[in-house]
């Protein structure tokens, strides 16, 4: 089933009865060339690019729940490439380029909206840091414009420019940044992978990873054993538990990050706006809800819900920045489980000492925008056994060697600092 203007008209005139299922509900086969553990955004994009770029189609994605039921369905949908450090910069740049061609590639409306992202700054020192970041983004080939206070006012006239605590000095404007429809990204990749022969197996929890003599042989699941020559662990949020099945501890601590959405409003916020001093960011969904969030709750958690102090803090920060949203009613809040790494950057690597076992994890609170490039680079690694150049620095041994530590915030490579 493919989408087209003609198909939309035809279905509209015939009661929309001809839309079929978007992917096959596959049953597990006894053996595959490769298995991806985890049917979220990253797992599905890995499967899609394994099939599309590398011709590997005898593969399966095994998911313990339903496709796209984890963090890809629980995030705040922001897509950007405003990273500073080499290692991150080329990766997110690659990802943004993939986003820009994603709808055409997948024949799926992921509602990618490049509405522009503005990171506000509030002091001379912060302005210098943002100017430098902007230069790095431009050097990478992406876009960044340094706005002064009046420049920000043109885009965001509704901000409280007179606030005394954090007066707005300006902002770094990233016009190609924006948002996308998170669920559609998972569904689009799922359909694309399924169409190419990938088996998407839901309600199938991996309970163990079979390793013999340092070589991966397959997985044990709640629906029986499945053999495979290669296994990729792509389960951010649960990475520690699955890696433990292979006897590996990871440099990851899981934290809960909350997000909030209001009732639907008429268009009021055209961009993605972040207010770093108050730990607050916001955009408006196409349905009209204001989607916003702040910082981690800052304690290890798998609860998928947070506590009141951070809710209060986020609301405080929102009111400080844009008092106009004060009468909007919050409809829902929820929490997602973040794979937090010491330096705040991810891993796409082989698992030491086990041939054929790979891992893609540690996305901290920035995994959504990485979905296309993460899958692209993980597929490259699994298919060719070599790291893709855009993700060459996402190595597990960097915490031990200290080489290529990717501490984007410059706060230190240690748990509890990101």
């Amino acid at each position: 089933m493919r989408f087209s203007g003609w198909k939309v008209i035809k279905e509209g005139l015939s009661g929309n009865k001809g839309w079929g299922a978007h992917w096959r509900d596959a049953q597990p086969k006894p053996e595959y060339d490769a298995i991806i553990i985890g049917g979220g955004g990253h797992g599905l994009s890995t499967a899609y690019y394994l099939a599309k770029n590398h011709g590997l189609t005898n593969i399966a994605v095994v998911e313990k729940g339903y496709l796209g039921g984890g963090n890809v369905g629980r995030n705040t949908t922001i897509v950007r490439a405003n990273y500073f450090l080499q290692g991150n910069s080329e990766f997110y740049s690659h990802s943004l380029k993939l986003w820009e061609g994603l709808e055409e590639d997948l024949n799926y409306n992921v509602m990618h909206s490049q509405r522009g992202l503005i990171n506000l700054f509030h002091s001379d020192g912060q302005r210098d840091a943002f100017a430098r970041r902007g230069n790095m983004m431009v050097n990478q080939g992406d876009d960044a414009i340094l706005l002064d206070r009046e420049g920000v006012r043109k885009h965001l006239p509704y901000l409280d420019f007179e606030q005394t605590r954090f007066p707005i000095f300006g902002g770094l404007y990233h016009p190609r940044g924006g948002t996308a429809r998170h669920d559609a990204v998972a569904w689009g990749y799922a359909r694309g992978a399924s169409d190419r022969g990938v088996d998407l197996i839901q309600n199938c929890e991996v309970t163990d990873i079979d390793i013999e003599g340092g070589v991966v042989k397959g997985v044990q699941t709640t629906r029986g054993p499945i053999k495979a020559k290669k296994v990729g662990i792509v389960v951010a949020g649960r990475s520690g538990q699955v890696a433990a099945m292979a006897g590996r501890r990871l440099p990851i601590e899981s934290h809960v990050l909350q997000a909030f959405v209001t009732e639907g409003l008429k268009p009021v916020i055209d961009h993605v706006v972040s207010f770093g001093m108050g730990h607050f960011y916001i955009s408006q969904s196409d349905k009209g809800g204001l989607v916003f969030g702040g910082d981690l709750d800052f304690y290890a958690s798998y609860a998928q819900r947070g506590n009141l102090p951070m809710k209060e803090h986020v609301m405080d920060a929102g009111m400080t920045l844009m008092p106009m949203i004060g009468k909007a009613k919050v409809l829902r809040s929820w929490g997602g489980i973040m794979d937090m790494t010491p330096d705040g950057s991810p891993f796409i690597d082989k698992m030491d000492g086990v041939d054929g076992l790979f891992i893609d994890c540690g996305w901290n609170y920035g995994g959504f925008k990485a979905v296309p490039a993460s899958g692209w680079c993980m597929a490259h690694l699994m298919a060719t056994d070599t790291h893709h150049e855009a993700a060459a620095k996402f190595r597990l041994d960097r915490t031990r060697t200290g080489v290529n530590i990717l501490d984007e915030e410059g706060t230190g490579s240690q748990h509890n600092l990101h």
Partner: protein
Amino acid sequence: MRIKCPHCGERDRREFYYVGDAVALDRPDPDAGDVVWDDYVHNRDNPAGVTRDLWYHESGCSTWIVVTRNTVTHEILKTELASKVKEAMA
């Protein structure tokens, strides 16, 4: 979430600063080598379930506390003075 400080009693979570896994009480030998130190500083069991971590009663009595709690339910199971825990380990 409310945490029972062994000195001050049950207090709001806002009064405490979270440090992380209580592994910090078991610091390796300075000459233990990079693999051991990497494991100590970075790698974590990160359980979905009962865990032990260190909290600091920042807005209270400034004591270090070992909190045993459940990461899935946020239930606090036990709190102990870190100094006592450390003594018992000796």
